[in-house]
């Protein structure tokens, strides 16, 4: 038997094996490396006595339970009309250029993944984005580059 990842075991132990805890468990497992791998899912399933296909089906339903490899920091740019009207497209282009990646991709140094998402609830201060959990609003192409630079220094 494969040794189960300790992250999975710890998460299941912390929240409990009942199915109702599946989302918190998946969120916790995801946090250790920013995405859920094949074996994460099957390990969670085995620990919780659920089928792997079921857990995969649940995980794939939720936008923020990433099932593909991600960078250290995930940038989510709001793509809803209100942010679009305030120029979110320019922010996106600026980021693509600065990070030298397209939407959906991860930088080669593994520091950033660039993604889009639906309304994040900052329509009055668009364009807005999340980096991991942190919202950034009233973005300009200049501002966004500074933010990236800060994260770059931090990581």
């Amino acid at each position: 038997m494969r040794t189960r990842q300790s992250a999975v075991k710890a998460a299941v132990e912390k929240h409990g094996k009942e199915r109702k805890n599946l989302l918190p468990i998946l969120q916790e497992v995801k946090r250790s490396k920013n995405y859920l791998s094949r074996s994460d899912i099957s390990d969670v399933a085995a620990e919780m006595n659920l089928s792997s296909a079921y857990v995969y089906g649940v995980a794939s339903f939720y936008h923020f339970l990433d099932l593909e490899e991600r960078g250290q920091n995930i940038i989510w740019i709001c793509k809803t009309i209100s942010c679009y009207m305030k120029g979110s497209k320019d922010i996106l282009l600026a980021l693509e250029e600065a990070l030298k990646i397209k939407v959906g991709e991860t930088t080669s140094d593994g520091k950033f993944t660039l993604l889009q998402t639906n309304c994040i609830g900052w329509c009055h201060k668009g364009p807005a984005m999340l980096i991991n959990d942190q919202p950034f609003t009233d973005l300009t192409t200049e501002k966004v580059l500074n933010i990236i630079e800060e994260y770059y220094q931090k990581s």
Partner: protein
Amino acid sequence: MTVKMINLTIDGKKIGVPEGTTLLEAAKLEKVKIPTLCYHDDLCIAGNCRVCVVEVEGWRVLPAACATPAMEGMVVYTNSPLVRRARRDILALLVSEHSTQCTTCYRSTNCELQELAAEYNIDNEIYINLIKDKHFTIDRTSWAIEKDETKCIRCQRCVRTCAELQKVNALDVIHKGANMKIATFFDTVMSEVVCTNCGQCINRCPTGALTERRYIDEIWDALGDPEKHVIVQTAPAVRVALGEVLGFEPGVRVTGKMATALKHLGFDSVLDTDFAADLTIMEEGHELLDRLKRKLVDKEDVSLPLMTSCSPGWIKFIEHMYPDHLGHLSTCKSPQQMFGAIAKTYYAERKGLDPKNIVNVSVMPCSAKKYEANRIEMNDSGFQDVDLVCTTRELGHMIRQSGVDFKEIPEAKFDPFMGDSTGAAVIFGATGGVMEAALRTAYEVVTGREVPFDGLNITPVRGMDGIREAKVKLENVLPEWSFLEGVELRVAIAHGLTNATQIMDDVAIGNSPYHFIEIMACPGGCIGGGGQPIPTNAEIRRKRAEAIYTEDEKMVIRKSHQNPEVIQLYKEFLGKPLGEKSHHLLHTKYVRRERV
């Protein structure tokens, strides 16, 4: 307790129905058929296709009849202009997401979407074809099941089947919105997942999205090859269901017509899996007695209860789900595989044939048998023991292709030499049948007397309850079985893998009170197998089971150990049950598998 009655009006008619009745059921009581797609008698309510919408006076929306309970004073219209328009739209939407190449579809003329689309005269051109832009695949990796995403309508019947009836959950719903689809774990190919090949999903798929992998062409090729000696064996459950795909009502026995048709198709020898079922009983019955002896007399640590191994869906299930408990399985191969191994050895020898020229074809009520025949363990004759497996449905196709007028052809018998069988073998086709056959033989071996049940009918093991149990007290046993004197033999039967899980969970913790357990993967046993005619429901399965027991009653010999050809086989070839040759040809081992 009195049930509260609900009064409502359906299509202008006032009726009363018990509280809890859905609008779909209420309409059915009034002989009004509301079209459905995601609804299935065997499954929980999903309410997701929305084809069964109806109009209710005063309601803002059209509710789904399958998911809406009748309420006091409701005024329901099942066929108003609004309802018809909505249904047409919904069907047109489904068609826009569906491969409409019906002319080449295996399920053509047996497809619920096709039927409704025709009924509502759906215009295929209204909406934009969505298939083109999607990366749909057809998965043909499994020996048993083909999964064609271009034909899936997302009704989730397969998902519910796999979860509710079988507790396998190989298929589930993934992603959401436009990308939502039915898939395995990480969309892995069917051959690499926990799928047991039971085919219950096929039986409930309304379209051609899930079908058995077909071997019709390969069989025709073999039949057309003069070098080949093509043998066909047919399982007991086929003869009580084949009629359904050839114009008969459920429950009609077509054993004789089937034999005639098979001869017409050109098989060199038309034989009976029932022969091997009797052989299975000889081996498995003795295996049970042997384990009891080793446990009770020799105090060996043998696995009890003994569990049957005839159902390849069940075998793969236990290999995935309970890999630590494979020791409980009988080492006996299934009748199909025993037949194959004997046909390429004993039969070949007696007929003076080179086994490499023998093609073993089997007609099975099952999709998992296709997988079983291709397991690497199944080559004990020196060749692949069984070459090609087709389902009851495929045989129906072949018979239609051959031009035989099935309704009118006369009846024939199976060919001699591995064509003989007993009533005990026939009942293998229904849940509880293996147990009953085994008891008829084991009891007689131990006591020298027939089982103490009226007319050999061991009724406690029959029926359609998910789990059944029975006890048989062994008294006045023959001297060589004295250690069994006074022992109360406890047996249990389960069908459908969800029920099997209940039994197995007790076995796994060493808490099972039984000596012998029969498990069949499919609801109703083989008569409800994944290769049987579509549709299926409890009523249809009951009729097929009844036909099985009628077939048994009509047999002259009804105990496996009295099958003359089996007796002859042991005398001429195998020696004795559990002997060396048996061990080599008729027994097998199992594989631990992962649960992904």
